[in-house]
């Protein structure tokens, strides 16, 4: 971990001086993550990728304003969050349901969720570690299903076909993954909430 950190710190210095190769490293590290984040609010892969691209471009243009490598993540997610909020508020999210009340309700909920997430540098680093650990702790099959779902945005049917298991099994793995993550992470999110309120 510390090796990795000093490696990234060195890259960060080059990045600040305008080294494109260093930027590429951060681009590759964060592109999918930001996309995965956005897609859960705007439900369109292309649009989510556009936002991720924009966030990374914005990072490149504002590299001077960053103090440390830990700031990158916070910078990108804060940008992505505000872009998602804008997209929702300007009604640019495509309707997902026939019943318009559901579309409106979903947007309201998403706005509330986005507003409640803070991307302070310190908490993020710690949170990232905990999330990583939680995912690592999932049973192997469950983790595989979860990752295919989250990272590759696959449909349950596709995952079932790839892993040669039944659709029911995929659903069961997904339920299990979310249950475990919910328990582990919501405790932590609550903790962040307290931290923020005390500040």
């Amino acid at each position, binding site marked *: 971990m510390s090796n990795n950190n000093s490696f990234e710190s060195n890259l960060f210095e080059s990045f600040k001086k305008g080294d494109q190769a260093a930027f590429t490293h951060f681009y590759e590290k964060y592109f999918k993550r930001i996309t995965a984040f956005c897609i859960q609010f705007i439900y369109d892969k292309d649009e989510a990728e556009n936002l991720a691209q924009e966030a990374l471009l914005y990072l490149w243009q504002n590299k001077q304003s960053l103090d440390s490598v830990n700031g990158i993540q916070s910078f990108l997610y804060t940008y992505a969050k505000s872009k998602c909020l804008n997209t929702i508020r300007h009604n640019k999210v495509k309707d997902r349901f026939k019943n318009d009340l559901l579309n409106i309700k979903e947007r309201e909920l998403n706005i509330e*969720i986005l507003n409640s997430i803070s991307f302070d540098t310190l908490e993020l680093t710690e949170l990232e570690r905990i999330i990583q650990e939680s995912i690592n702790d999932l049973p192997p099959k469950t983790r595989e299903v979860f990752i295919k779902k989250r*990272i590759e945005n696959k449909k349950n049917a596709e995952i079932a076909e790839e892993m040669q298991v039944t659709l029911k099994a995929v659903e069961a793995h997904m339920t299990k993954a979310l249950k475990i993550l919910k328990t582990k992470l919501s405790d932590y999110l609550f903790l962040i909430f307290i931290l923020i309120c005390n500040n």
Partner: protein
Amino acid sequence: MISEILTKYLSNEATEQEIQTLFEWIDASEENKKEFIAAKKSCVMTSLSDLNSISETSVIQLKTRNKVFKYLKFAAVFLVLLGLGKLAFNYNQKANYSKEIVLELADGRSEFITKNNQTKIVNNKGDLIARKFPNQITYFGKVHDQEVVYNTLKVPYGKKFKLQLSDGTVVSLNSGTTLKYPEQFGLNTKRNVYLTGEAFFEVAKDKTHPFIVHANHIQVEVLGTKFNVSAYPENPTVNSTLIEGSIKLAEAENKSNTVLIVPNQMATWQNNSKKITTKFVDTSIYSAWTKGDIAFKDTPFSTIAKIIERTYDVKIINENSDLARQSFTGSIKISESSVENILELLKRDTPFNYAVKENTITITNIP
């Protein structure tokens, strides 16, 4: 009930009806809403983690080998003994395609590659372009781009063959495979070859002339590397497994649909969905055939049957539904095992009867 719908919602699989129920539940109390927000937040926050690195490392775990593997491992020993009593299938009666390896030359002439004709191949100018051995042809030389002409080599079921192309690339061809390739590569062109079936490539390094394997709707592009491509026409997929170097797969009609794979990864093209997926694999399983082995890992019987058909040039009809659902793990030396040996082994795990008539094997339930 609600937690089930919530999971479906978070994994984007809920129906509109279910979402309506969920939203009504959320509206019912402040508590419910809090719970929903916490759940979605946890889910969203997982995008912070490095899912990529997880999927590349820890997910790939070798499954514990099942009991069949043990049998097959021991089998290697006793197969040698049983192999002596090898069943001779009647190869001659089936004549719907050539039983010999056929080489089609650029001018349309065809010739058989048989045991006894070690010869030279000359082009129409009388230049020596290749030497032919019983199990291999070696090409050499380069030509001007406009003079590139193609040869086609057809390997029937039950046979294997090796080619050394004029750039030094070695291609092992599995049973039931056709490869079309330039007799001599052009001086300035890409190195294009066309594959149906399965081949293992050891591509000679040449950065200025990318080597491209065309198979089905896929192009596999390489600079210098070792990899296996399996593109049998009866399969709805093309698999490419990489041993060394790096290769790029792209859909022929849509070049933006592309993936880059690293050693120990397998890329799979699906004809139906037109998608290319990748996963990490034990590559030794996919290149085992080049060493005269058949290897399976959690391989369904239908796939194994197809491999046996190609390797031994037999036909298998399976009427046993238990066997059809079964998967097997293990490896077999082809030279030391007959089809019967293999079937006897599989029988130990999943009992069945079989009958051999000429070169057709019919598998049935135990009465």
